[in-house]
């Protein structure tokens, strides 16, 4: 079975992102001119019934040359206090997020965003104090 090339895979995800998938997150190209489609932006709607409710978190996503064989790199722009997020840089630590740790080609950027959202309400994370809304790394 042939593997879909990186560019077409990214185009696919781009199209899905443009159509709008989940209501809980969104994503798109950071630079519309970037023919390599490396840099992306994402937003995650905070999980309800917790401190994150009604908050919007911005992330930046970088799809390297080996995407989707390798997972993209995620970095929180909006400040958030989660286990898997480096509190200095905002980088998402791949070893701390299951989907990145066990990455599969079939996973998408949207999958990652939704997983991060789920992380917000895990027992470990939901009690963590959160920085003020609107603050950034």
């Amino acid at each position, binding site marked *: 079975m042939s593997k879909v090339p990186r560019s077409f895979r990214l185009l696919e995800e781009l199209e899905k992102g443009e159509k709008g998938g989940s209501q*809980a997150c969104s994503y798109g190209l950071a630079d519309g001119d970037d023919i390599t489609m490396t840099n992306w932006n994402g937003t995650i709607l905070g*999980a*309800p*019934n*917790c401190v994150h409710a009604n908050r919007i978190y911005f992330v930046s996503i970088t799809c390297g040359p080996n995407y989707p064989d390798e997972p993209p790199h995620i970095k929180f722009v909006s400040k958030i206090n989660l286990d898997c997020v480096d509190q200095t840089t905002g980088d998402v630590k791949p070893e701390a997020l299951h989907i990145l740790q066990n990455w599969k080609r079939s996973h998408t950027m949207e999958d990652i965003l*939704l997983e991060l*959202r789920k992380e917000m*309400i895990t027992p470990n994370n939901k009690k963590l104090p959160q920085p003020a809304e609107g603050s950034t790394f």
Partner: protein
Amino acid sequence: MSKPFFNSALDDENSAPAKLDTINDTENGDIASQETSIFDLKPFDEGEVSQKTRKAEKSLERTFAKKRQLDFYNRHTWHKFIGSFIVEGTATRPTTKPLIYGSKLSFLVTTLESNSKVKIKRSMGSLIKFWDPATRREVGRLPEKHASIIYPFLYNSDTEDPTSKKEVSFKATIVYAEPKRISVGDSFLVQIDCFLNSSLFELSSTTRPSIEASQLQNTTDLGHSLNGKKSSNILFGRNTDLDQHEEKLHRRRKALMTLFDELNLKPVPPNDDISIVSDTQNESDADQTLDVSTASAQKKEQENIEVIDLDDEDENDAIKEEHQGSRYKKYYDERPNAESSPELSVNQLQNIYKITQSMSSLMDLPETSPSGGFQFTLRKYQAQGLSWMLKREHAFDKIHDTEFINANSNKMNPLWKKFKFPNDSAWSLNKTPDTTKETAESEFFNEPSHFYANLYSGEFSLKVPTVKLMTKGGILADEMGLGKTISTLSLISTVSKDPDFQPYDIVKISEDNMKPYAYQTTLVVVPMSLLFQWKSEFENAMAGSSKYCEIFYGDQSQKKNLIQHLCSNKSTPTVLLTTYGVVQSEFSKYAKVKQGNFGLFSVKFFRLVIDEGHSIRNKQTKTAKSVFELKSSRKWVLTGTPIINKLDDLYALVRFLDLSPFSEPGFWRTSVSEPFENKKYKAALDVVSTILEPVLLRRTKNMQDADGAPLVELPKKNVKIQYIELSPLERRLYQSFLQVAEKNVRDSLKKGELLKNYSSILVHILRLRQLCCDLHLLMKAKKNKEAVQQSKFDDIIMEEDSEENQAENVAEAEHLDLAQLLKMSILRDRFFDQKDLAYLQNKDEFFGNLIGAEASSLRKMECQICLSSPIEPLESIVFTECHHIFCSDCMDRYLSHKETKNESAVCPICRTPELAPARLLSPIMDNTNKTIASFRIESPPVLEDFVQSTKMFHLTNDLYELYDDNPSERVIIFSQFSTFLDVIQNELEKKEHDSRFFVSKFDGRLNLKERQLVLQKFDQDSENNQLKVLLISLKAGGVGLNLTKANKAFLMDIWWNAGIEDQAIDRIHRIGQERDVFVKRYIIKNSVEEKMLKIQERKRMLGEIVEGDAEERRQRRIEEIKSLFE
């Protein structure tokens, strides 16, 4: 007119009550002086002295007697400090000297004349005032609130003896007053110490160690109790028509509550040995109702179900807020037991059950062997159950475990609360030793540290007020399949008649409307389908004994005079068996006539047993009402599921069993329904468990006994799901129905009218489900009468699916002509027929030229899709109307691809529309295979082509397999469609099967006799080698039948509610089953069935919410429908 009445507050220095004081005073002056004079004897001469002495002696005797009396009285009365509060008094009279700090005050009480008809609203503050005993003057007023607390206790006109009825006493001491003369209106502070007197506890603690629950209704000797119906009015604050006495009681109760409030007396949790509810239950358990409903609401948001952590309080509030204005508001209804009440979650249900079946108490139950001719040996847990039931009937002579008999149910009545006597910080106590401390005799002198109070009724007790219920009987709630019938029969056998009744009293006048007493008969009410099962169980169990069981049913019953039959001394049936339907119909006649010899209502029975008691859970149905009216000395409910939907289901059972006071609707409402609606789940469930625990026995299949062995060893249950594909014809029809249904749903969703079109959507879904089973279900036929036709004596309707039933009616009413439908669906495809073909061959040059053309020319052609050339074999070449050529594989793939995407197919080369398999031609070669002879067109499927539905096909195969393994096997086949059962029966009885199968059918359309026959035949062993097949309608046969002779079952179709299916399987997977059970379910792939299966599984995972009312159910169903069409 009012009389001043002096009532001095209890005075420590002189603890004698006022009356005795007066006696002393008037008669002999000062005791002390009297005493000293005795010991101060001067020498005297005989005559003189003796007279004097005698006089002195006599008076001394008297005073000593009085003192002894006084001492005795003191010894047996006591008061205990419960707290104090400070009030601000307002002076009403000027004084010459300032008030002295530490001086005592007493109270001046003004009474209202008891026969004053005019109800003057007097403020309490005007009726009771501070009184200075030293100056014998009124000093001032109390605040209204405190006056209302004190007044009811100081004045009690019920008796003239002021000593015996003072329940609460007060001592007032001035603790602050300005050091100047008092003028009117000045304030001063008084500390009022409050004491509870022994008389308050007296009747409760000496006469009865436990409070009879029924005393609230009838007894009057408990002076503090409230009487009759009006009691509930008082308890629940409805003040209509209170007479003075009750007004007083009401005031007293109110005063008590305010007093406790003012003193900040809070109840303490009861001891370990007296537990209301197991401590593991906490609020968040109860809140899990909201968990699941919120989760389902958020399903739309994301694919995965969110888990909301309910330990977080903030979250709880958020959830509560969400729901506040919405559904719960409408449940506040003035009527008791409003129809709709909030739903119970599975977790709450489980908690209730957990409480009522504490493992240890269950395991410790002693075993009792049945007597009276009972033939079977009971299983261990059944024998334990028998002991329990005997105890509930107070048949202690039959139980041989005295410890068990004496063990008290140690549940505290939840209306009572435990309080701790606070440390004595009364003012006066600092100065004087408490004389009661010294004397030590009876238990009363051991200073009680705690007391119990029921603030609702105003009763107090020093001992734990346990609930001891008067009702003989209870609820046997063992899980389905554990043999409740046998357990009950063992009870009936062991105690078959009333032991207290003298047989030669032919007619006993009982309290109930002077009914004759059928003292030897137990009336057993069952659903119709179980009638014969019970009879045969009885006959098996009591074989050889003289006891017999009679069925009371149908026309015969009307002619019988039950009074004669049951109450005379001649041999009477031990068990009278009847159905709910009969009870209800008899009752409607009885209600009209209200007297006389109306069957079941003309006598009082010894014992009444209702099987599948959840049938009366809606207390407003006629069935329930008529069952309530049956009279008996003992009452039993058998049910596998006592609480089906809501907490109020339980009320019907409580009412049936007369579990006073909870059987009163007002009482139930206040103590259970309202707290539950107000989200005070713990309080409500506390009460429920208190009510249930003594009267309910439940064991489940997976429990273990004391040795760790499972309670019931049942063989394994293997359920297999077989996914099958529809045949092309069926699939074609299914697709066209599906399209219509989808369009309908989509349109309704868009307009937001899903609810409005709910019933029509149900019809669509129903048709799809029918299509999955058999096309015959859709055909207009006389036989196609579903569901509605249940025999009129059979009341058990599955409410949940009443809308389903309606859907079926609607569907059938629409007169589907299957052939017509097929035609319609085919029209879409516009098949070629022979005319078209002729035309093409003759008039169309292309095709015309091809006829007779050589094979070689065909071979040059290339399929434009796969680019292969030549296309082999030649017959697989496909021509379109527009003369384009493809190979059949590619064409098939293309067409199905388009169908999957729901796009119409066009010619890949020229885009001519309406490409369809029906409009393709394939060449037919001649014999030599060298030239094209003609063309083949795909002909439209005709209904006549329909031989068998897919499911039928697979079923037949499977039955053949079973037959080959064991020709005399017994098999049960379940379906919700009785028409489908008809079809199956027809199929299996066809000649081609050589009578391999012996088919019988059990469904709602059979009458009683027919049903009995069917069951009998099925049970009998077959003489010839025939596979016995019993077809059962899921609705009619799901209830209670015991079919353990079979161990194989097929579920032909799928139901919304997995529970119903489980019930069906339980017909064979229950006690009495000796072999492993195998169940097969057929599910059509890519169909509504598959989706329903997923819904079922999801429900199972989440824990099915037992839904509240019809609207809730609808909402839930709508969600499910939406997911069906996603």
